[in-house]
C-alpha cells in the first residue's frame, strides 16, 4: 500500500468511526445535553453539575425544586401531591446564588409554563459576591452549559461517558431493564449516608463561648448583599410574574447559631438577613419563608447530621408549612420575626445542647 492510499484509508476509516461514536453518544445522551431520555433506556441520575442543565432544558415539568444540599432530600412526589404540580428536583450541592439563578434562567428560557419554584436561600452565602461561582472543588463542565458546539467533543469523546454511562445503559437495555430515570425523590437523596444527633453535630465542638468582640454589617456589605439578591433572586421573579416563587431561609441548627455567636457574627448575620428580606419582600410573587424561629426544630440536634443539614422530615415539614402559609414573612411581620430571632439566639444557653440525648429512631414525618 502506498502512503497516499494508507492516508486515505486512515482518514476515511477514522472519520467513519468518529461519526459512529458521535452518533452513539448523541443518541444515548446520558446527560440529556441534546434531548430528553429515550423511553426504552434507563438513566441513572447522580451528577448534578453534569445532568441538571440537561434535565432543566429538556424534561417536561411545571415546577422546580432547586437550591443547595439543603434541598436534596425534598421528595418531588410529595411536592407534586401537595401543590398539584409536575416537578423536577435539580439541586446544586454547595452552589452560590449565581449558579442556582443561572439554572433557573435556563428553565424559564426553555419552558413557558412554570407555575412554581421552590428554592433555598442559604444564609451562609449572604456575603458571597453576586457573580461568584464555586470553582474550588472540581472542574465545571462548561462544555455542557455553553453554546459552542466545538467543545462538545469533551462530552462525546469522553471515557466516562462512553464506557461508564452509555455502554451500561445499552447493557441494561439488553438485560431487559425497563426504561426510565432515577426518581427525583431518590436523586441526590443522602439520608442513608449519615448519622443524626448531637454526638455527630457537636463532635468537633467542646463548648460555646461568648465572643471577644462583635462584627457589624458595613455599608459596602449591605450594598453587595442587595445587589446579589436583586440580581440572583428577585429579578427572575419580577420577570415572571405568573410564577409563584417559594423561597425559604435554610434552618440551621442552634449549634450553627452558637458558632456565629462565638465568632461575634450573629447580629451581623441577622442584620444581613434583614437586608435580604427587605430586598425581596416587595416582590409580590415571592413567598419568603423562614423556620429559624421554629426553635423546637433548630434546638433539637436529632434533626441534624451536622450544624447545618437537617433530615428529610424537616424538608417534608417545610413543604406542608409552605402550603399552609406557616413561617411566611410579610411586610407586616418581618420586623417582629427578626426581633424574636435576635432575642432567642443571643440568649439561648448553647451549652445545654451537650446534654441532649441521641435518638436513633428518626421521625419519618413531623406532626404539623
Amino acid at each position, binding site marked *: 500500500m502506498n*502512503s497516499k492510499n494508507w*492516508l486515505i484509508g*486512515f482518514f476515511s476509516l477514522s472519520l467513519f468511526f468518529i461519526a459512529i461514536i458521535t452518533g452513539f453518544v448523541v443518541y444515548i445522551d446520558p446527560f440529556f445535553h441534546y434531548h430528553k431520555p429515550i423511553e426504552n433506556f434507563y438513566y441513572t441520575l447522580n451528577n448534578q453539575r453534569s445532568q441538571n442543565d440537561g434535565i432543566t432544558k429538556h424534561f417536561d415539568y411545571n415546577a422546580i425544586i432547586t437550591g443547595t444540599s439543603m434541598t436534596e432530600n425534598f421528595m418531588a412526589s410529595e411536592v407534586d401531591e401537595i401543590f398539584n404540580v409536575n416537578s423536577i428536583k435539580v439541586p446544586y450541592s454547595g452552589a452560590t446564588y449565581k449558579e442556582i439563578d443561572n439554572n433557573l434562567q435556563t428553565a424559564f428560557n426553555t419552558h413557558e409554563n412554570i407555575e412554581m419554584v421552590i428554592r433555598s436561600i442559604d444564609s451562609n452565602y449572604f456575603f458571597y459576591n453576586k457573580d461568584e461561582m464555586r470553582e474550588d472543588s472540581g472542574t465545571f463542565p462548561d462544555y455542557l452549559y455553553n453554546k459552542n458546539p466545538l467543545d462538545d467533543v469533551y462530552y462525546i*469523546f469522553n471515557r466516562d461517558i462512553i464506557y461508564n454511562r452509555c455502554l451500561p445503559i445499552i447493557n441494561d437495555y439488553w438485560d431487559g431493564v425497563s426504561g426510565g430515570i432515577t426518581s427525583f425523590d431518590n436523586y441526590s437523596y443522602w439520608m442513608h449516608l449519615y448519622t443524626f444527633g448531637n454526638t455527630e453535630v457537636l463532635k468537633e465542638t467542646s463548648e460555646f463561648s461568648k465572643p471577644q468582640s462583635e462584627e457589624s454589617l458595613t455599608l459596602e456589605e449591605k450594598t453587595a448583599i442587595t445587589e446579589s439578591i436583586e440580581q440572583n433572586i428577585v429579578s427572575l421573579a419580577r420577570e415572571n410574574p405568573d410564577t409563584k416563587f417559594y423561597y425559604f431561609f435554610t434552618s440551621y441548627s442552634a449549634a450553627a447559631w452558637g458558632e456565629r455567636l462565638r465568632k461575634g457574627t450573629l447580629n451581623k448575620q441577622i442584620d444581613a438577613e434583614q437586608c435580604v428580606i427587605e430586598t425581596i419582600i416587595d416582590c409580590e410573587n415571592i413567598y419568603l419563608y423562614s423556620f429559624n424561629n421554629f426553635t423546637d426544630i433548630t434546638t433539637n440536634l436529632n434533626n441534624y447530621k451536622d450544624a*447545618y443539614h437537617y433530615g428529610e422530615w424537616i424538608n417534608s415539614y417545610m413543604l406542608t408549612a409552605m402550603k399552609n402559609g406557616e413561617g411566611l414573612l410579610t411586610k407586616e411581620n418581618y420586623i417582629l420575626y427578626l426581633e424574636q430571632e435576635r432575642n432567642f439566639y443571643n440568649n439561648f444557653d448553647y451549652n445545654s445542647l451537650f446534654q441532649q440525648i441521641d435518638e436513633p429512631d428518626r421521625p419519618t414525618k413531623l406532626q404539623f
Partner: protein
Amino acid sequence: MKGKRLIRINYMQFNTHIFILFFLPISIISYFIINRLSKNKNHIGNCFLLILSIIFYAYAGVKILFFLIFSIIINYIFILLQKKINYYNRIILSGAIIINVLILLSFKYLNFFILNINTIFNKEIASLDIILPLGISFFTFQQIQYQVETYYRRTQSYSFFEYVLYVFYFPKLIMGPLTDPHYLITQFRDPQKKNINLDNIVQGIQLFVTGLLKKLCLADVFAQGVDWGFTNQSIATSGDLIIVMLAYTFQIYFDFSGYTDMANGISKMLNISLPINFNSPYKAFSIREFWKRWHMSLTHFLTQYIYIPLGGSKKGNTITYINTLVVFVISGIWHGANWTFILWGFLHGMGQILNRIFQKQYEKINPVVQWFLTFSYINILWLLFRSASITEWITMLKNILHLSDMNISQKLINKFIRPETQIIFKTLRISFLNEKIYGFSLLFYIAISFIICLCCENTNSKEHKKSFLSLIFIVLGFVWCLTCLGTESTFVYFNF
C-alpha cells in the same frame, strides 16, 4: 513534601481533545498550505512554525509566555556578547550558564531551599507561591546547550530568529527530547522539508498513535493502581506494594516514552526528525546500559556538557567515579526539588560505579540474572522517585522486604478492571477468566507491558509499514484512544 507551593498550569498536552482534534490537524494542514503558496518557503514556513509554537505555549497563559521570551532575550544578550567579544570567553559562557541555572533554581527549587533552611535552622520562613513556567527544566538546558555551542563557534551562521525557533519549537518544547541546535536548525533551513511528504505523514501518524496508546491505555491505567498504593500504604500488603512498585515502573516508562513517541510523530509530520530518546530501556542488562537506553537525550547532554568537561574517564578511576556521581546527582536535582530525587540520582550513580568496578565479575553472571538484578534495582529506585519523602520510601521498602502478606488487595485489582478492557475480553471471549483467575485484569496489564517492553522492537528502530494490517491497527488504536480521552466532571463539596 510539606510547604511545597509550586503552582502548576494547565497546558495543551498532546493527549487532549484540543490538541488532537484541533491544534494538530489545523497546524499540519495550514503549515503545508502556507508553504505551498509562499514564494519564500523557508522564511514563511519557519515563521509559521514559530507562530504555532507560540500559540501552543501561550495556551497555558500569556504570563508564562512572557517569561520564556524574557529568558530568550537574556540568553541572546549573552550570545551577542560571546560573538562580539570573543568566542572562547569562558567568563561570558560561565555567566550565561550561571544565569540560566539561577533562573531554574529560583523557580523550581526556591521553596525546597526554604523548607530545608526552616528544618535545619528551625525557622519559619513562609513558602512562596511560584508559578512554574512550563518546560523550564528542558528549555533551560536547551539554552545552556546553545550557549556552549556558541562558545565553540558552532552557531556563527544562525540568526536570532533561528535561535528563537530552536528554543520554541513546540513538539519538543515542554518535555524534550533535548536537541542539539545544529541538528534542528539544519532541518529548519532545508527547503525540501517544507514540502509535504506523505511517507513522513504516515510515519508521524503511526508514531503519534503509538505514543497515545502507551499514554492512555497503559500509563494512565497503571497510574490508578500506583495512586491507590501510595494513598493506602497503611493497609497495603507486601504483595500490593510489589505490584505498585512494578506498576510505577511501567507507568513512568509508558508515560514518558509515549510522550516522546507523540513528539517524534508530530515533528515527523512536519518533516523534522527529533533525536531518539528511548531504546527499550527495560531490556538493559546493567545500570550502565539502562542509561544508554533511557532518556538518551538527557544522558547525552549530561555526558557532553558535564561529564566530559569534568574530565570524564580520562583522569583515573577515582575521578571517573566522582564525575559519575556528580553527573547523576545533578540529574537527580534536575528531575525535581526533593531529597528523593537527589538520592535517586546518587543511587543510580552508585549503580554505575559498581557496574564499572565489578564489570568482569558481573559479565560472568547469567544474563537472565543480570537482567533481573538490573530491573529490580531500577524498580526500587523508581519507587523512591515516586515517593514523597525518603522516609516514605524506606517504610514501603521495609514492608516489601518483610514479604509478610503476599495477598493482593481486591481494591488494587479493581483499579485494573476497566470497562474498556472488559470489552476486549468479551470480544476475545475470555471474560470468564476474570472469575476463574484472581486478579486476571491486573495480570493482563502486567503481561502486556512486559511483552511490549521486552519482546517488541523499539518504536524508533521499527520499520513503519504501510500495510493494510498497520492501517487497521492504527485506525482502531486512534479511535480507541479518542474514546479514552477525558473524564466526567465530579464535584466534591463538603457541607454545601
